[in-house]
């Protein structure tokens, strides 16, 4: 818990701490004497509220606000941190804060579920898995960063793992796509291809694409699991 110290007048904090994705930001007030700020920082790191008691190596970002930066000031601040533990001190920049939002995109998103026919000229683009409950007609496009599942006839263009995920799959109840792409591998449906009356899925084996019965999806996923374990 951050509380005011003797060095800070009530109602005004010289040092405020904020968490960002990469670590902590120490915002130092820029409208008071630097010595007072340094004192407040020392006090804050010294008391029980210090976040560095674990002894792990951490990085902190220091936001000097509009204060004119001199090597002396930076040295002084760095010394205060080094006195507490093995801490890397970096200058805070606005871009550090934007990053947590960008990284948010990497989190798995809920699948996009579409009910109905996707017709020629229509495009479904989604960052994540896409589920179509209906037909995907010739000339329709689906682009997904994750897997694509079609509960109907797949006869359009599909691109799974569009952002490079080679483990993405394309599955369809009636698998007859014009073209399948997984990550960067492109295949078109063979001209004469007899369709079994069961759901199929396409996946990558190295840089080759394979189409198999849905019942083998389990094996494929187990394979992935062992892959992961090796890595």
């Amino acid at each position, binding site marked *: 818990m951050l509380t005011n110290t003797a060095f800070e007048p009530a109602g005004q904090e010289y040092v405020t701490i904020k968490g960002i994705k990469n670590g902590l930001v120490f915002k130092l007030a820029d409208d008071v004497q630097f010595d007072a700020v340094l004192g407040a920082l020392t006090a804050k790191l010294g008391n029980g509220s210090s976040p560095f008691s674990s002894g792990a190596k951490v990085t902190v970002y220091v936001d000097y606000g509009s204060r004119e930066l001199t090597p002396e000031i930076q040295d002084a601040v760095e010394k205060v941190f080094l006195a507490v533990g093995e801490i890397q001190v970096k200058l805070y920049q606005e871009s550090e804060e934007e990053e947590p939002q960008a990284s948010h995109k990497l989190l798995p998103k809920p699948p996009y579920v579409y009910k109905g026919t996707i*017709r*020629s*000229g*229509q495009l479904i683009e989604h960052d994540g898995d896409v589920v179509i409950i209906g*037909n995907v*007609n*010739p*000339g329709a496009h689906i682009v997904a960063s994750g897997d694509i599942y079609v509960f109907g*006839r797949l*006869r359009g263009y599909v691109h799974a793992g569009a952002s490079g995920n080679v483990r993405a799959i394309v599955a369809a109840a009636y698998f007859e796509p014009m073209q399948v792409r997984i990550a960067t591998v492109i295949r078109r449906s063979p001209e004469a291809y007899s369709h079994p009356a069961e759901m199929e899925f396409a996946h990558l084996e190295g840089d080759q694409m394979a189409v198999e019965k849905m019942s083998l999806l389990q094996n494929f996923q187990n394979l992935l699991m062992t892959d992961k374990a090796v890595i």
Partner: protein
Amino acid sequence: MGEAIVVTSGKGGVGKTTSTANIGTALALLGKKVCLVDTDIGLRNLDVVMGLDNRIIFDIVDIATGNCRIEQALIKDKRFDQLYMIAAAQTKDKLALSTSAMQAIVHKLKMDFDYVLIDCPAGIEHGFRVAITGADQAIVVTTPEQAAVRDADRVIGLLEAEKIPPAKLIINRIRPHMVKNGEMLDIDDIISVLSLDLLGIVPDDEQVIKNANHGEPTVVKPDSKASQAYRNIARRIIGDPVPLMNLQEQSGFFKRMKKMMGLG
């Protein structure tokens, strides 16, 4: 208040204008008051198919620009009491007709007519968007060819995006013997791709071409198969349940023809 129906296809040359002319005439024969509207500005030919090309004084762009009133641009078909048409402009550009002007025209026509049939230009650009505004229903015409079906699919998607109720499908120029031999797309295949209600199937019939060249809709002559097909479509539009023409029956018809020729 009547109903505005747009006849569209995406691909050109599949029989939009022929279908508009024949369905309109068939509806008029059933006693409905019908107005045909040609929106293919710059490439009008509904007037030619109807045989009314020498009677155009004002066209749809004249109405839109205020050059004339709607009544002045209505061309009455002398053969039928209840059949009128509005021609497209031939010397103007597609952009001469705006969606708002079209909407106003269709709205006014619906006050006076039971059915307003709008003949849509090929393509999906401005002309298409103008033609479909104000339509309460859409008829999509396709032929049993991959290219036509693909374009029809695209158009259906665009109609859905415009919140026009699910279109009805007409499959035109079916050659039963080619379908039977698997050389032409099967009707069931087409419906499974387009997933629309089938309004009718029209067999390929040379009579249609002959009649169109004489400026006479095929339905006027009741003897041909295509004529019968268009009459059935018109009856389905007014809510009369008519069974679909049976392809099997037709192949039987063709067989009989062959037999007759063989005997003769």
